[in-house]
């Protein structure tokens, strides 16, 4: 079907419709749709629909009804024409009910009638009653002919089943489609009012189905009524009107009764669960009582027991969700310990956590149930907040239930046997992990009420598990205790409790390896040590045992990451008490390096940990010696790296060479010969990453009292040498490997680690050395280096070496401008442009005198560059340029010559800047950029006497990007901006003007 001719006869259209619903290629279907849609939208669409609806095929009739919907949505009809369409539609509906048409046709015709109501409700306000009347008479009659004396119920009672279903489908679609129409729109206010006037008729229709005698057709009718009720409740929830709500409430009892009928169970429980969750106030107190009674019935108990016994069918889970929705809706009852009925129900909700199977993989109700309990505890916390939390009745409901849930949940999160776990798919494993996190959250909430007894509970559980070698229990209890680490008070008031665990045989057992304690339990226990690092800071007596255990685990690939992380946390936070252990740790690290399994990330953490201990050594000679020993170990990789690099292009390294173990982690290790240059690069990255971790470890702790830093530190010649050695490594690696992005990034991070330090240290390089290094030869990621230069300048301005600022800026500023100059266009490398202009902005903000004394050609370039960025489209450089101009406009210096230069520059650049800002605000900028662009505008208005003139000229310039605003609007905008004098409301004025310039199409968001 290459070219589809426009059909000219009805049979041709029929054929095309049949083709549309046949399995065809997407392209063919799309072409057929195009042709048919053209016909639908044509003037002949009405006649076409009439012809199609007279055909025998369901799909053709369906398309005919669809055509009517398209015409109603697109054509504008007079009331008379509209009414004649309505008459025809009802006739077609009645005919289709009598000629054996399928439900697909009847439902589409009902949708067409609803579309009619939405567009022409003023001609058909009592639509339900009229339709029922016509269905009753089996003919379409004019609206005015309705027999007003007969109640609607009489029409309904006389309907046969197909007609009842059709009426029900119409009422469902009526609520569903009208619900989508904005209730606040003035155009549709009357539509919603007219819909409400039909509510009583709809209620009568639905309630009829619940009254009729038993039988298959009556059950089906009831199901349809429940679906219809669901649509109407949704509509009523959106704009609750009392008569409608009261009408619908009368239908809830039969819906509740529907639960015990197997055929109605699914639709009833979905309806009730949704209403309980979204709109619990819809239920009356009596209806809540009915539900309480239902939950205590034999029927409920059977369903509940099935769920607990591991029935994970949809029906069973639905029942559990229904219980939870009810519990959430009656949360206040559940919190009242004197409400016996509610407490019995609450015990049932606690029991949901004992359903058979592992959470998520088999037990699907665990997570929703735990969510309920988390919400319940949050409510309890809110209620107890104002009361004294002493002497809470933990042995009575509801608190006793909470402790029951704690007990159930920690048992449920125990890992299964490894073969069971391995049989789960990735989603089930992730879900199980998430369920554990949910339990951790829940325990943290419970701690708010219970306090330390909860910690004691898990400590005791750990000790019990240890004594009985119950590893799954040990793992789960350790996980729960770890989860509480953020909650326990900082002062050490629970140390006595924790002593029981950390002073137990736990470390000795874990030391014995996998043969005794399984990997998963060991991992969690190592994690537990890290979580309580503050405790170890207060109990140095346990530190060596803990760290020895952790170091012994680093070489094990299953435990390398958790143990190294714990080592880093412990050493970093307890560095003071550990200085005497540094030699032992260096030995441990040295022997770990000799193994083949030392993971690179684990190694970084270990060297960072050792560096943080060395940092706190007060004896300078010992400190220097320890650092030297650490650096020598890193130097081995550096030497190997340089040696391999010197082998030249094409040289190969055997995969069994020990150097390969250092260059590649176990999972990435090559099996064949590798190019020496590649190995060399990997070694460089590993050495640099270790250096970076050492540099971070050497940073003084953030809580260090700044008074402790000594201003008059004697020059340490050893330190100079160490710095020179490190800088030597950095220079060599920059020269050899700076084409690699990771190398550049890590080098810059190493430099930054020293910038923030106030005291001398191995990574706190002399400013001139940093400047020289930064302005060297780089082959990649130059933007990162420029950004590092910005941080460097900022650190100089806030550090001790203020005398170095001017020379640094004098060297760095031309270097940055030179880099920007090499760009063919400012936006060719957005990152470099952004960081370059940010660098200039920081220099201006900190040392404007030095910047303004630079070569005028450099200054002119940077100003024009900043204007170009402002005119561009790249968001980040544009934001940086806006900030640059904000800073420049605000510049005020004491030196008169410098101030004169600034003023002179501003008077030259002001018109261009004003034009750039006005173009952006006039619609060129993105909406999200407006606040940033408002900043320089506000400063310009406040600071410069000529700003009004510049802005006026820019607004009236022919290049102004929008023709949607008049000269008057521009004048008014300018007047507002000037009169606001840079105050905050300027942003709103700018936003409104931007919107006016863009046009009403952009007013879709508030």
């Amino acid at each position, binding site marked *: 079907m290459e070219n589809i001719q426009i059909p000219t006869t009805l049979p041709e259209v029929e054929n095309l419709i049949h083709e549309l619903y046949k399995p065809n290629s997407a392209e063919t279907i799309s072409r057929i749709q195009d042709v048919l849609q053209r016909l639908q939208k044509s003037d002949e669409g009405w006649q076409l629909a009439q012809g199609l609806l007279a055909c025998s095929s369901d799909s053709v009739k369906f398309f005919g009804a669809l055509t009517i919907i398209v015409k109603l949505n697109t054509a504008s009809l007079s009331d008379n024409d509209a009414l004649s369409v309505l008459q025809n539609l009802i006739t077609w509906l009645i005919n289709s009910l009598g000629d054996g048409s399928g439900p697909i046709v009847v439902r589409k015709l009902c949708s067409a009638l609803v579309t009619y109501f939405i567009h022409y409700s003023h001609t058909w306000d009592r639509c339900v009653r009229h339709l029922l009347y016509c269905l009753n008479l089996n003919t379409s009659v004019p609206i005015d002919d309705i027999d007003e004396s007969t109640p609607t119920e009489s029409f309904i009672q006389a309907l046969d089943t197909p007609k009842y279903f059709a009426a029900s489908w119409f009422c469902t679609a009526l609520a569903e489609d009208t*619900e989508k129409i904005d209730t606040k729109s003035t155009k549709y206010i009357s539509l919603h009012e007219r819909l409400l006037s039909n509510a009583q008729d709809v209620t009568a229709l639905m309630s009829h189905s619940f009254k009729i005698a038993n039988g298959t057709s009556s059950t089906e009718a009831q199901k349809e009524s429940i679906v219809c009720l*669901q649509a109407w409740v*949704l*509509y009523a*929830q*959106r704009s609750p009107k009392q008569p409608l709500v009261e009408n619908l409430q009368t239908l809830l009892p039969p819906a509740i009764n529907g639960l015990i009928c197997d055929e109605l169970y699914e639709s009833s429980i*979905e*309806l009730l669960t*949704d209403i309980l969750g*979204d*709109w*619990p*106030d819809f239920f009356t107190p009596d209806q809540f009582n009915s539900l309480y009674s239902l939950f205590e019935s034999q029927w409920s108990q059977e369903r509940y027991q099935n769920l607990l016994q591991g029935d994970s069918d949809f029906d069973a889970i639905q029942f559990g969700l229904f219980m939870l929705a009810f519990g*959430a*809706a*009656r*949360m*206040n009852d559940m919190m009242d310990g004197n409400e016996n009925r509610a407490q019995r129900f609450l015990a049932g909700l606690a029991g949901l956590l004992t359903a058979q199977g592992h959470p998520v993989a088999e037990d699907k109700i665990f997570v929703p149930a735990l969510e309920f309990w988390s919400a319940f505890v949050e409510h309890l916390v809110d209620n107890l907040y104002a009361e004294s939390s002493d002497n809470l009745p933990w042995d009575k409901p509801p608190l006793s239930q909470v402790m029951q849930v704690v007990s159930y949940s920690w048992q449920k999160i125990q890992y299964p046997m490894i073969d069971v776990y391995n049989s789960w798919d990735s989603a089930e494993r992730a879900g199980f992990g*998430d369920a554990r*996190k949910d339990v951790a*959250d829940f325990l943290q909430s419970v701690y708010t009420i219970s306090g330390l007894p909860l910690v004691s509970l898990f400590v005791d559980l750990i000790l019990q598990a240890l004594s009985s070698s119950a590893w799954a229990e040990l793992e789960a209890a350790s996980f729960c205790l770890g989860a509480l680490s*953020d909650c326990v008070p900082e002062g050490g008031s629970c140390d006595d409790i924790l002593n029981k665990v950390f002073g137990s045989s736990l470390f000795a057992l874990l030391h014995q390896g996998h043969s005794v304690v399984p990997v998963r339990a060991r991992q969690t226990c190592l994690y537990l040590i*890290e979580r309580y690092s503050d405790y170890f800071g207060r109990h140095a007596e346990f530190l060596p045992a803990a760290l020895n255990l952790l170091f012994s685990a680093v070489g094990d690939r299953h435990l390398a990451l958790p143990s190294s*992380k714990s080592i*880093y*946390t412990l050493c970093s936070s307890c560095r003071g008490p550990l200085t005497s252990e540094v030699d032992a740790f260096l030995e441990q690290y040295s022997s770990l390096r000799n193994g083949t399994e030392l993971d690179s990330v684990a190694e970084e953490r270990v060297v960072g940990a050792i560096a943080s201990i060395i940092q706190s050594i007060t004896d300078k000679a010992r400190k220097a010696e320890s650092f030297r020993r650490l650096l020598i170990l890193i130097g081995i990789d550096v030497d190997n790296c340089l040696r391999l690099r010197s082998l030249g292009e094409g040289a190969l390294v055997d995969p069994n060479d020990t150097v390969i173990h250092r260059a590649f982690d176990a999972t990435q290790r090559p099996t064949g010969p590798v190019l020496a240059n590649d190995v060399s690069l990997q070694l460089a990255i590993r050495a640099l990453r270790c250096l970076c971790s050492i540099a971070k470890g050497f940073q003084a702790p*953030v809580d260090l009292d700044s008074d402790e830093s000594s201003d008059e530190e004697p020059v340490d010649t050893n330190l100079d040498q160490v710095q020179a050695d490190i800088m030597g490594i950095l220079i060599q690696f920059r020269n050899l490997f700076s084409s690699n992005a990771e190398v550049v990034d890590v080098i810059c991070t190493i430099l930054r680690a020293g910038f923030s330090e106030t005291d001398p240290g191995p990574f706190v390089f002399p400013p001139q050395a940093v400047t020289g290094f930064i302005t060297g030869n780089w082959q990649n990621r130059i933007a990162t280096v420029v950004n590092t230069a910005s941080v460097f300048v900022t650190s100089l301005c806030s550090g001790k070496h203020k005398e170095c600022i001017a020379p640094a800026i004098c060297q760095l500023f031309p270097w940055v401008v030179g880099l920007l100059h090499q760009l063919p266009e400012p936006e060719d490398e957005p990152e470099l442009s952004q960081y370059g202009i940010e660098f200039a902005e920081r220099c201006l903000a900190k040392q404007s005198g030095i910047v303004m004394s630079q070569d005028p050609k450099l200054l002119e370039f940077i100003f024009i560059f900043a204007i170009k960025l402002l005119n561009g489209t790249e968001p980040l450089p544009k934001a940086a340029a806006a900030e640059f101009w904000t800073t420049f406009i605000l510049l005020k210096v004491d030196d008169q010559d410098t101030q004169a230069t600034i003023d002179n520059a501003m008077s030259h650049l002001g018109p261009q800047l004003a034009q750039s800002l006005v173009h952006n605000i006039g619609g060129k900028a*993105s*909406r*999200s950029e407006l606040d940033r662009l408002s900043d320089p505008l506000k400063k310009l208005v406040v600071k410069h006497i000529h700003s009004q003139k510049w802005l006026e000229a820019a607004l009236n310039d022919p290049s102004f990007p929008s023709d949607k605003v008049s000269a008057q609007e521009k004048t008014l905008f300018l007047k507002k901006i000037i009169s606001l004098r840079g105050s905050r409301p300027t942003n709103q004025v700018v936003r409104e003007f931007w919107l006016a310039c*863009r046009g*009403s*199409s*952009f*007013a*879709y*968001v*508030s």
Partner: protein
Amino acid sequence: MATAQNFYELYRRSSVGTALTDTLDDLITDHRIDPQLAMKILANFDRAIAEVLQDKVRSRLTFKGSLHTYRFCDEVWTFQLKNVTFKMENGGQVVSADKVKIVSCTAKPTGNAA
């Protein structure tokens, strides 16, 4: 059952929200979508981000700081904190901020709570 719950529009001011709005603006400028569709997309965004943050995001952090101002107005809590440090999950990075404003709205619209 689709719920009639209205969702807050406050995430439109997040970076992902502003990026979405900018993109919708671009599509309207290029006549590839009309504003009505943009409005629906934003309404979907309001719903989706609220649901995703509630159901899917498992990461967590803790923070400490000095509470400078707090207020509760129209079911919205506002806290202004100073000198705040954020501690990421699993001992990750520590982030500091001079000032932090927390706006906290009730999870369900007024009148729908139990």
